[in-house]
C-alpha cells in the first residue's frame, strides 16, 4: 500500500517545525513515531500535503520530574516508558499501561505524545493519563499553552490542538507516596486494541480517598472518564462497598458497542470487573509504599 505523495520536512527545531505548519495549516501532519499515522496514510485515511518529521529535533526526548511534575517529551517512545524505573516507582497506571500498548517492536518507535495527538478512542495512553490527571503542553505560533487532557480529547481522532500547534510535552502531577494505580487491559492477542481497558489512579489522605481518577478505553467514542465513579469515591474509605459502587458507576459510564471484540454487554461487564480489580490493586500498591 502506497500513501499519496507528500513533501517531507525534517526540521531541527520546534520553531522550524512550526513554520512549516503555519505554511501548510491543516494540510500538514506531524510525524513522531509514525506507528498510527503511517498506517493511516497507507490506507489513505490521511493524505497530508506535508509531513513534518520531529525526529531530528533535539531536546524532546526527556523523561524526568521537575517541580512536582513528570515531564514526557514528544519523542519519548513507549519502550522508554516501559523501562523507566521512575514510572515503576510511583506512576503505577502509566507503568502498567506502557508494556500493554501494541507489541514490542511498535513500542520501539511509537510515542506517548503522538498517541495522544492521534486521539484514537482505543488508545491506552489516553485513559492511563486521564486517570493520572495529565495535561499536555502545546506549542504554536503564539507560544506555549497548557491543555488539561480532559479538554484535549474532543472526539474520535479529534483533539483541541490547532493545526499550527505541536504537542511538545505531556505532564503528569507527581502522585506522591500516598497513592496507587493500575491499568488493566483485556486484549485478544498481543498487538490488538483493547476489548476494554480501565485506568485507575487513587490518592489517599488520612485513610480516605482524596482523589480518584478512573478512565475507560475501547468503550466509547473517545477515552472516557468515569466521573460519577470518581466522585463517589472521593472522601470515602476504599472498602468493599465503595469499590463495588464505583465499579457499577464506571460500567454505567461506558458507552460500548457490539463488535468483533465482544458484545456491548460483555464489555460493560469487563469495565465493572476491571474497575474493582484496579481499585484493589491501587490500594495494595499504596500499602506497599
Amino acid at each position, binding site marked *: 500500500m502506497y500513501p*499519496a505523495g507528500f513533501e517531507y520536512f525534517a526540521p531541527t527545531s520546534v520553531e522550524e517545525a512550526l513554520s512549516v505548519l503555519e505554511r501548510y495549516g491543516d494540510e500538514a501532519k506531524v510525524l513522531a513515531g509514525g506507528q498510527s499515522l503511517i498506517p493511516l496514510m497507507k490506507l489513505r485515511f490521511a493524505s497530508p*500535503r506535508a509531513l513534518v518529521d520531529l525526529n531530528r529535533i533535539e531536546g524532546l526526548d526527556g523523561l524526568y520530574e521537575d517541580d512536582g511534575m513528570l515531564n514526557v517529551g514528544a519523542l519519548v517512545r513507549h519502550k522508554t516508558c516501559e523501562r523507566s524505573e521512575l514510572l515503576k516507582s510511583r506512576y503505577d497506571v502509566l507503568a502498567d499501561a506502557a508494556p500493554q500498548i501494541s507489541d514490542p*517492536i511498535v513500542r520501539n518507535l511509537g510515542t506517548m505524545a503522538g498517541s495522544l495527538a492521534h486521539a484514537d478512542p482505543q488508545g491506552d495512553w489516553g485513559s492511563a493519563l486521564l486517570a493520572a490527571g495529565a495535561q499536555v503542553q502545546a506549542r504554536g505560533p503564539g507560544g506555549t499553552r497548557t491543555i488539561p487532557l480532559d479538554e484535549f480529547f474532543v472526539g474520535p481522532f479529534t483533539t483541541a490542538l490547532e493545526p499550527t500547534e505541536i504537542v511538545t510535552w505531556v505532564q503528569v502531577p507527581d502522585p506522591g507516596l500516598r497513592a496507587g494505580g493500575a491499568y488493566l487491559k483485556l486484549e485478544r492477542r498481543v498487538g490488538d486494541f483493547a476489548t476494554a481497558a480501565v485506568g485507575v489512579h487513587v490518592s489517599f489522605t488520612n485513610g480516605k480517598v482524596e482523589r480518584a481518577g478512573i478512565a475507560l478505553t475501547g468503550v466509547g467514542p473517545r477515552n472516557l472518564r468515569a466521573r460519577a465513579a470518581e466522585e463517589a469515591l472521593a472522601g470515602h474509605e476504599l472498602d468493599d462497598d465503595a469499590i463495588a459502587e464505583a465499579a457499577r458507576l464506571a460500567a454505567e459510564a461506558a458507552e460500548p458497542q457490539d463488535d468483533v471484540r465482544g458484545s456491548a454487554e460483555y464489555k460493560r461487564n469487563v469495565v465493572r470487573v476491571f474497575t474493582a480489580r484496579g481499585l484493589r490493586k491501587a490500594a495494595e500498591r499504596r500499602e506497599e509504599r
Partner: protein
Amino acid sequence: MTEIATEQAVYTRAVSVTVNGEARSAEIETRLLLVHFLRDTLGLTGTHIGCDTSSCGACTVLLDGIPAKSCTLFAVQADGRELTTVEGLMQDGQHHPIQDGFHEEHGLQCGFCTPGMMLTATALLAENPDPSEEEIRWAISGNICRCTGYKNIVKAVQHAAAAMKEGR
C-alpha cells in the same frame, strides 16, 4: 505577462544510509516505505512483506540496532542512520549464531517470518545475553509465525544465546 513565482512541491529526496555496513545512497520518493527501499531500490529481498499493516513483524529490520517494522517507516526517516537486514547477519562467510540456532533447532517451516524473527532475536541477545523463555517469548511477541507454534523458535534463540556465551 507577469511571472508569478510559485514554490514547486518536491516529492523526492536524496537519502544516504548504511545498510549492513555498506554506505548506500539514492534519490527516492518521500512516500517510499523503507521495506520497498530495501527490496526494490537496493535489491535486498531478504526483508519480507507480510501483512503490510505493522501487525506481523515479517518486515522487521534493525534501525540503529533497534527492531523496527520497515513497512511502517518511510525510507527518508532512515537518512543518515544504520540499518541491518537479514543479509547482514552473516559475517566473513560464517553464519551468525542466531542463524545456526534456527538451523539446528528447526526454528522455521515456511521461513517467511524468519528474517524478522532473527533480527528481533539478535537485538534481544545484544541487550540480554541470557534471556529466560518468558523474556524470549515477550521479545518476539510482535513477530507472528503461522507454522511453528513458536516452540522451536524459542529453542533457536536459546541455542544462539548458549553459543554466543561460549564465544562462538
